[in-house]
Each structure stands twice: as structure tokens, then as C-alpha cells.
């Protein structure tokens, strides 16, 4: 049997702890083990008080995002073997308030999500179901960007979010793009106004940190650049 994993886990209970700490655990390895299995093992057999969040276990719900060995990842989709080391350090996502241990408060993230009205509002006059042609490039581009599971990995990796609490962040802007690029949407111009602010699209410095960590291979930076282009077109009166 191969050597056990040496796991360091961030621990903090704001209600009872004065300061955060790291606890060390030795965890046996099994085939196809994911980081989520590691924390589940710790909770089942080593320390029942460890808190973390997960639900679907198949990379769909976005609730198991953690900061593993220096990078935001979905714990359920990260194979231990892919880390290429037996030493694993698990922390909560950066840029979020900590509720307890590995559980972060997603409220600031979803507050910003709400600001861009993340739901589709159909134009009244359209009765045909689709006016953006399925085979058009634009349609494909929107499709790619729709895969977001709002895990918050991009938000936690973004240095603009880190320095500025008002910046909408990559995920919300990406979502805004998918709606603004959809010609069937009734409030595209209003949405564009909501992101055409100093702390909207203009804070993005195209660092691509979000794209680097997105478990769905989305490139929010690209959506943000496209939004900037549309903001400029709006100023020229070309974006309708």
C-alpha cells in the first residue's frame, strides 16, 4: 500500500477561536481518490468537527470549491494523484469571509450576481423561440460561457476582487455577458449600463487569473473584454 497523505487543514471557528490554525492529519490513499474524499475521511475517522461544504460530488453544484495546494479547485473534481505530491494543504477560498473551517460565506459573491439581474427577461414582441441562430459564432460563444456553476473559484483568484470590495468580479460579469449578447433579452442596454461602471468591467486588467482556475474552462476575461467593446459601441450609439 502506498504511503499515506500528509494533510494540513485550515481550521477556524470565528465563534470560539481567537486565531486560525492548521491541523495535521495522516490520510490513507485509495485509487481515484479526490480531495473531497480526503476531507470526508478526516471528518468520518479523524475529526468529526471539521466543516466543509459539498453536494453533488460530480462537479455540478459548485459548492465544494476549496484552496488546495495554492490554487482554487473543486474538491470533488481534483484527483489526489493530479497534485503530484503526498503533502496537501487545504484552505478555504480566498476573498470570502470565513463561516467556519473550509466553509466560506458566498453572500458577497451572490450579492454582486444579483446586481446584474442574472435571469433572462424575454422581449415581449418576440414570439419565435430563437432569434440568435444556433449555428452562429455568437451563439456558440454564449454556450461556452453558460457552463458556469457559480463555484466562486474565479472570484477567489481575482486580484481586483482582492483589492476592491465593490468590483463585480469575473463570474457575475461573465453571466452578464451571456445575457447581453443574447439579442432576445429585453433589458440588454440596462444590463450594459449596470456593468459599464468603474467597478464593473473597467476594473478588469485582463490578468486571466479567473480563466486559470475555472473548473469549467470558462474564460471570464474574454466575456469581460467583449463587454468593454459593447460599452464603447454604446458610447458611439451603435449598440442597440
Amino acid at each position: 500500500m502506498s504511503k499515506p497523505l500528509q494533510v494540513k487543514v485550515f481550521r477556524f471557528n470565528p465563534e470560539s477561536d481567537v486565531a486560525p490554525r492548521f491541523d495535521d492529519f495522516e490520510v490513507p490513499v485509495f485509487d481515484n481518490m479526490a480531495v473531497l474524499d480526503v476531507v470526508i475521511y478526516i471528518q468520518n475517522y479523524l475529526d468529526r468537527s471539521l466543516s466543509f461544504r459539498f453536494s453533488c460530488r460530480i462537479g455540478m453544484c459548485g459548492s465544494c470549491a476549496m484552496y488546495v495546494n495554492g490554487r482554487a479547485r473543486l474538491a470533488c473534481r481534483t484527483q489526489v494523484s493530479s497534485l503530484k505530491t503526498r503533502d496537501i494543504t487545504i484552505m478555504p477560498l480566498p476573498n470570502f469571509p470565513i463561516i467556519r473551517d473550509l466553509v466560506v460565506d458566498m453572500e458577497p459573491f451572490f450579492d454582486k450576481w444579483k446586481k446584474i439581474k442574472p435571469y433572462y427577461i424575454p422581449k415581449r414582441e418576440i414570439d419565435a423561440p430563437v432569434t440568435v441562430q444556433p449555428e452562429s459564432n455568437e451563439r456558440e460563444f454564449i454556450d461556452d460561457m453558460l457552463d458556469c456553476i457559480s463555484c466562486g473559484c474565479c472570484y477567489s483568484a481575482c486580484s481586483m476582487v482582492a483589492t476592491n470590495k465593490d468590483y463585480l468580479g469575473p463570474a457575475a460579469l461573465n453571466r452578464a455577458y451571456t445575457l447581453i449578447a443574447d439579442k432576445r433579452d429585453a433589458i440588454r442596454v440596462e444590463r450594459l449600463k449596470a456593468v459599464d461602471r468603474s467597478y464593473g468591467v473597467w476594473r478588469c486588467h485582463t490578468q486571466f487569473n479567473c480563466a486559470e482556475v475555472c473548473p469549467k474552462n470558462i474564460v471570464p476575461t474574454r466575456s469581460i473584454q467583449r463587454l468593454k467593446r459593447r460599452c464603447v459601441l454604446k458610447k458611439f450609439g451603435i449598440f442597440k
Partner: protein
Amino acid sequence: MHAWTWVLQRISAVILIIALGLHIGFLHFSNTGEPLNYGEVVARLKTPVLIVFDILLLTFGLYHALYGLYSVFLDFDSGKKERVIVLGLFVVVGLGIVGFGIFGLLYTARSL
């Protein structure tokens, strides 16, 4: 406002690449001999095309740099008052340096 200033920064980047390339290229290839003599330097400073390029370099280089700095400043949470003060400062400094630079270039060209 950001849409305009952002587009202008893109435009200034393109102008900088061209103007800087021409500037360096010209300085490199226009040397007739080593070392440069005074007459050549004077001739260069009086060449209208070069003066125009230097003015473009100065104006767009400064805009590009100051807008970049202002963007970095905006990355950090700051109040409206601070933003207006810093923007005002950058505008004054930028216009001051551009004005001084253009005056210097034209004055030198005329008085040499």
C-alpha cells in the same frame, strides 16, 4: 467616461508602438558617422517629421502611463473625493508636462 478613456488607451498603445519604432529606427539608421557632430544634432532637432513624432510620443506616452497609474489607483477602494483629487492631479501634471515638452521642442527648433 471609462469607455472613452479605455479606447484612447488602446489607440495610444498603437500610436506608441509605431512612433517609438520610427523614433528608435530613425535615431539608429540616420547616423552618418561616429561620433555625432553638433550640426547633425541641430538638423535632427529641426526636422519637422521628427518634431511631430516626438510630440506624439510625449503626448500618448504620458497619457498611456498616467491612465495606467490611475487605473491602478482605482483598483483600491477609494472614496469619490480621493478619486476626483487624484484624477485632477494627473490631468494637471499630464497637461503641464505635455505643454512644457511641446514648448521645449518648438522653442529649440526655432532658436537653434
